[in-house]
């Protein structure tokens, strides 16, 4: 059963159809959760007793940072699948995720920097989390650069898969080493993240935003994957039929 599911999803044509039906659902639920999350985060949740209103940027920053790591793991897992079983669709997922992941990483960095200004008085502090996030951005950019440099797109997809796997092995090491470095060189700063016992009124909008970002990623990755499939399979029969239908 599961094998058959993967086999079907592995076929570009089937994937194209299913993805096309899924995208509207993802988009609608993304918008709903976004509006709800932002409303509760920006208007309903109480101000922070230390940071006042400026902490509210957390509702963008934290989910974006979570997404940046989540997407990298998704890329590595689909990279592994495409290397071992040579499934075309997971190759497409790896590539389609890279730019979305890089955007979320950039968003996390930018919001982190904006948040840092009122807290630390400067735009940038070599804080452990921000530094890790910066290195993650470099890893994403490396993947994108490698993919665009290799002309044969199937070869490119497999090369990028390996790179994603190497990266995912290294990310915990990088993260740990940056933290080690930070505790030694940096006087302890106020951690930006709330205590583990965050108030429910703050936690719920945060989780809503996290779900919302995941839905957005789902929608975008499916759109990009569809575009990638059509480009890859442009010589195949079903794509040409599709184009003719569209033209009518």
């Amino acid at each position: 059963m599961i094998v058959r599911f993967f086999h079907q999803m592995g076929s570009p044509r089937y994937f194209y159809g299913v993805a096309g039906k899924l995208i509207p659902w993802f988009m609608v639920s993304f918008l709903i959760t976004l509006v709800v999350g932002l409303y509760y985060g920006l208007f309903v949740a109480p101000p922070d007793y230390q940071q006042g209103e400026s902490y509210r940027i957390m509702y963008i920053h934290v989910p974006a940072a979570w997404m940046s790591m989540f997407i990298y793991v998704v890329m590595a897992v689909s990279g592994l699948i495409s290397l071992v079983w040579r499934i075309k669709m997971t190759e497409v997922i790896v590539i389609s995720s890279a730019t979305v992941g890089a955007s979320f990483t950039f968003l996390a960095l930018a919001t982190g920097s904006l948040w840092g200004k009122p807290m630390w008085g400067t735009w940038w502090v070599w804080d452990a989390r921000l530094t890790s996030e910066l290195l993650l951005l470099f890893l994403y950019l490396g993947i994108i650069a490698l993919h665009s440099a290799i002309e044969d797109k199937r070869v490119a997809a497999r090369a990028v898969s390996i790179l994603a796997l190497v990266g995912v092995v290294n990310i915990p090491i990088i993260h740990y080493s940056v933290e080690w470095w930070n505790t030694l060189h940096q006087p302890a700063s106020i951690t930006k993240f709330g205590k583990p016992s965050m108030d429910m009124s703050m936690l719920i909008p945060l989780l809503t935003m996290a779900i919302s970002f995941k839905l957005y990623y789902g929608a975008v990755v499916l759109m990009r994957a569809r575009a990638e499939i059509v480009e890859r399979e442009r010589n195949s029969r079903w794509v040409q039929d599709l184009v003719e239908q569209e033209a009518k």
Partner: protein
Amino acid sequence: MSTLSLTSAFTLLLKRDMTLAYRRRAELVNPLLFFVLVTAMFPLGIGNDPKLIEAVGPGVIWVAALLAALLSLDAMFRSDYDDGSLEQFMLSAHPVSILVLAKVLAHWLVTGLPLFIAAPLLAVLLNIPGDAIPTLMLTLILGTPVLSLIGSVGVALTVGLRRGGVILSLLILPLYVPVLIFATDAVKTAIVGIPTTAQLSILSAMLVGSLVLAPLATAASLRISLS
């Protein structure tokens, strides 16, 4: 394949690369010169205050070592790719990862080991106290092989590209960060006179880990680059 023929293939390739390096021995000093020159630029850039130089010394040496490793990496597979030897390695009767390991070792002996030997001299130039020099050398001998091993994956991925060099640095410099952090931290700790066992153990663990994993990833990447 018996272990005997595995080791013989390993030594054969190691010998081959060492012979090739020896026949082009004029080029051997280049990474070393680069290493020394980059290090010498820093005091010129930041001023001759001995305190300041001492403070940045370990970092400067290690950043220069990183750049020297990066500069020499491209040569690891380039000529073998150009003349078709790499295809022959892929089609050999031995696991490619063993051949890769031999090539990385040869590359390190030629480009990494000289840095280790030159380090005491640079340490003196950068006011690093004598007590910390053994630690500096230990970090280099543990750390530079990791640079070559991780680098080999990046080179393998970019060997078929025309402008692989720039992409190569983008691919592997972020991966070099842990080595840089722990190595410089070890030297700084040694300067203050605190034991550095923790940092050195972590560096050794990185060496072991990359010895096991990097050749596999490099072999797989080479297959992809050649297809």
